[in-house]
């Protein structure tokens, strides 16, 4: 796989489709982005990182030192990814702290989910996907040819945007990762089931109906069931892909409480749209924009003292 040159540089922001920063609704005058497209020769020098990213220029991500001091469970090393000829991730490099909650935020289409799905190589299922660079789990590359994808996924637990319990009993849903490993020991399965459901703060609600269908639960319960399923396999990393976007505020609060409880036991990477949620549950936050990492640091710093003005704009709702 050779280095693919970055996608053709769009000549004007207006000519790129949906990936350009959306014009903010409140239409505050902003440099470059707010102005109508100008002819090439009259365009002013790009001052904003956002603008430079939109033009396809490489930029240096702002990574806080506090992050680098942490023990990394995952490391992204110049990771780029293409869907066919369209590049979705550009040269992403950052470590993910062990035992902490790392939130990935950013506007729609910025590549957060793609990045998350690269960690357990769910992107492999997409036919035309291609990547470069490396991701290391505990120092071992997970992209190598000799890596067994199935085993890799067993080391990760993943929770999706939409609750997706299997059409089986609650019990079977939870012990699914053990079932596929061929474990038939009833006692062990029961033990893991209870442990995982307790871990997912669902035990008390479902302990009397473990053998009813998992589809009979409410949305929030279903999502916690999925989390229970994800932690039943004792993963090294828990990947949460917008776990609350389909839930109501009360269910969201429960999930957030759960994430807080799981902190320390698991290394969690959570993708979220909701900046308040990121600030509430995460230890570290990475802001992404158009497939690039913009800024990455401790959550408190990102939300209170961001290094970049663009981060400030995003968290205060000026764009995105």
């Amino acid at each position: 796989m050779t280095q693919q040159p970055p996608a053709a540089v769009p000549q004007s922001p207006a000519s790129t489709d949906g990936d350009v920063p959306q014009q903010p609704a409140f239409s505050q005058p902003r440099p470059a982005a707010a102005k109508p497209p100008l002819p090439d020769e009259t365009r002013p020098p790009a001052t904003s990182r956002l603008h430079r990213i939109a033009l396809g220029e490489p930029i240096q991500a702002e990574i806080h030192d506090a992050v680098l001091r942490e023990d990394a469970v995952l490391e992204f090393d110049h990771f780029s990814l293409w869907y066919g000829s369209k590049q979705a991730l550009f040269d992403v490099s950052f470590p993910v702290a062990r035992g902490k909650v790392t939130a990935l935020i950013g506007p729609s289409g910025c590549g957060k989910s793609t990045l998350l799905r690269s960690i357990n190589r769910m992107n492999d299922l997409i036919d035309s996907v291609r990547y470069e660079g490396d991701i290391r789990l505990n120092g071992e590359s997970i992209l190598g040819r000799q890596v067994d994808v199935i085993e890799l996924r067993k080391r990760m637990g993943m929770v999706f945007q939409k609750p997706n319990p299997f059409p089986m009993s609650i019990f079977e849903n939870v012990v699914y990762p053990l079932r596929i490993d061929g474990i038939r020991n009833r006692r062990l399965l029961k033990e893991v089931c209870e442990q995982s459901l307790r871990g997912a703060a669902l035990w008390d609600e479902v302990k009397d109906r473990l053998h009813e269908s998992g589809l009979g639960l409410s949305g929030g319960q279903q999502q916690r069931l999925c989390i229970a399923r994800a932690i039943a396999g004792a993963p090294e990393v828990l990947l949460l892909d917008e776990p609350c976007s389909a839930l109501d505020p009360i269910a969201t609060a429960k999930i957030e409480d759960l994430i807080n409880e799981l902190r320390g036991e698991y290394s969690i990477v959570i993708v979220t749209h909701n900046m308040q949620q990121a600030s509430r549950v995460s230890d570290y936050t990475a802001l992404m924009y158009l497939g690039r990492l913009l800024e990455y640091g401790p959550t408190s710093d990102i939300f209170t003292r961001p290094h970049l003005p663009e981060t400030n704009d995003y968290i205060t709702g000026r764009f995105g």
Partner: protein
Amino acid sequence: MRSLEIARGCDVNAETSPNSRRLRRVTQPSVYVVDRLARGLIACGGLLTVVSVFGVLIYLCVEVMPLFRPERIERVASWSAATDAATTDSTDAPAPLDARRAGITKVTARGVAEPEATGVESGMSPSDSAPLVGLDDYARMYWVFQPRRRQVLLCRVGGELLARHAVGVEKTVTASTVNPWTGDFAIGYADGTVQTGKLSFKTEFLDDSAVTAAERALQPGESRPYRKGLLERTAEHQLRHHTLVVQQKKPIVVARDRRILLVDQAHSTRGTVLVAVSDDGMLRYARVTERKNLLTGETVTRLKQGQCPAQFDAEDSPAFLRVAGLGDNVFLVFRDGRLLRFDTRNPSSPVLVERRSVLDTPHARVRCVTFLIGKTSLVVGDSEGNIGVWFRIKPDDASTPDGVVLVRGHLLHGNGNAVTALAPSLRSRIMAAGYADGTVRLFHVTSEQQLAEGRFTAVRTAEPAAGGPDAGAAVRAVVLAPKDDHVLALARDRGMLWRVHAPHPEITWRSVFGKVWYEGYPEPEHVWQSSSGSDAFEPKYGLVPLIFGTIKATFYSMLFGAPLALLAAVYTSEFLHPRWKKRVKPTIEMMASLPSVVLGFLAALFFAPIVERIVPETLTALATVPFAVLWGAYLWQLLPIARHGHWHWLRIPLVAISVGVGLQLAAWLGPVVERTLFAGDVMLWLDGQIGTGTAGWMFLSLPLSALMAVLIGSRWVAPAVRRRLRNRPTRTYAVCVMGQFLLGSAAVIAVAWLLGAVLNQIAWDPRGTFVGTYVQRNAFVVGIVMGFAVIPIIYTVSDDALSAVPESLRAASLGAGATPWQTALRVVVPTAMSGLFSALMIGLGRAVGETMIVLMAAGNTPIIDWNIFSGFRTLSANIAVEMPEAVKGSTHFRMLFLAALTLFLMTFVLNTIAETIRLRFRKKAFEL
């Protein structure tokens, strides 16, 4: 309408949009019209569908209903017989031997001098003197055969004498017989001669100018006696003259100088057969061949004779003599129920081959004996009122010299009164019986059902008869009209005619769905045989063989098609690259557009002959092709490129190559297999002539032992191997796994062989169960070809069902670390179960109703046999084959509708069950 008005009201406040378009906040009337129209059309279409389906059901029911309508008779005429027409020829039946010896003259004198004397009064039982009677086609007149008085009386229904014809010659008549089907009669004389002749009705149409005014004045439907017959004005205003013609030949010497006690005749292919019992206790058999010399015009009569002792003495003379259809068997029945059967296939030396009793109770007496149509079933009526129907069967363990045994196939119970008259139908298996108490019953012999009962109304004679209470009512003769539409009964002094309404006498629920003992069959069986070359044929309308055939066709085709289609659907939806799937799916769907008639004749004319030629190779291929494909998969794992995503497209061509290798392997191994396992000739082996059952059991148990091997392998062996080779290179692992597979295959064969040997040791041969004699058109061929017909539909529906499983479930499963195969089996297939089940049911429905393939390739033999190498006949194919030859409105025609109704109900029940199960499956996954 209210909403419309409100909308109109809003119209007043029509607004203007920012781009100055007038906003009409009202729904246009045309939208309402279209909406109503669409709703109406859709409702109409739906209703029409429901109505038409029910219409079909109702139509089928209406066509079938008459089959099960009860038969009945209604009285159309009754009269008291004042003339001697109703009286009988008192000495018609043989008198006891001693009486006969007493003097010829006495008998003759009594016959002439005492014309009114009846059998009852002369001390004989009524059946002794049962008059021989025949009825004409229109049930207008009947003849009474009275050879002792050398006359045949022709009487009009109502008793009026129309004509008196002379029969016989000037000798003492001692025996006589009339064949009710042909009108042939034979008269035996005291001098040992037998005279034959024929009674027949003659119809001619007269011109109005040829008759007198009285006849011309006849109105349609009216009739009057005219020139020894009856003249009737038909509905078409023609004058129909109907009369009796008596022909007779010269007497032939059968038993020189002996008195003939009993006589009967038959027509064999080589001439008329005359059988007689003479007073010296001999059975005489004579075959009369008449040959006309073409040059001289002179008729030469040749006689071939034989005789054997009939084994009776003077005190104990036989009462009835009957010759079976072609003259090959002669039955001699005594009053006490003894029956002697003679084999007369060699005319020069008849042999007594069987003796038995035809009565159950010791004190019962045989009262009448006759044949059913075809002269094969012997009907015996006794004094207890029971009618037994006897026919010959050929059991394997027969003790008789000719290997044939007489059995009682049917028993028709009366009400305890003696049977006094029996009359077979001239066209069907209906039997009319008259009883001593004056009742007349109609039976259908095959279905053993009593069709109807009639009774003489109490016409009391002036002085009661001596024979007992109302002995005059005892039925002395009963006869069925040639078209089975009338039955005539005569008592001593009265007569009665009933009209018979029995269009479908042979059909009862039991005869259609139960076992019926048909004539000549060793035991009651389910048989479908609706037509034959002869009129005497007994129609066999058992639907069970056809239902069985339908189930068999469905079973074998689903056995072949369903797993293939389901696995193909799972493969394409879960594993195949979308680019390939895009091409594969339409290709398979295109298979569905192949007309089944094309598949049918391919199967019958191309596939079946080829398979017949290469049976061992075909059988071997069933094992080698899966083996080769699996082996190919293991070989593929060995290739270094196997783990590269972009070489995956190579897999399909490689599978095709594997299949080819498997077929080649089968071609090589086939002859070897035939030599070693099937004793050198698989056809003879299947026929059960050579070899032992081991090989068959081995083949049958191959799938079972393979399944066992897979279970053991995946449960214990494979995890152990995986544990041991955890840190070895991939290639080593692949080699080991392949070794495991090859060892496993060997073990499968060994276990199958062992199983076969054990089953063979306990003397259990597979031949005769699911395998057996090979027929070219068989269930195997149909299974494969019909499998191809059902594969596309099962495949398409199940692929759609699998594709409809939300991607999020697959992602969840894969994200949890499941392999695609585990994902498919544990998540996708259970979720899509309702769809897969529907697919199977749709396939099943297609297989059940499929006509052309089974019609052409199944051989259409309605037999009940699970043997995969034998043919069958399905309900649908049966309808297609026989509908063109069924007469509209006939029993056969309606039975085909019953077959259709059965098919309809089968699919209906099947679909209902399927839908219920499907809904249960769907409930599990409906919240997705």
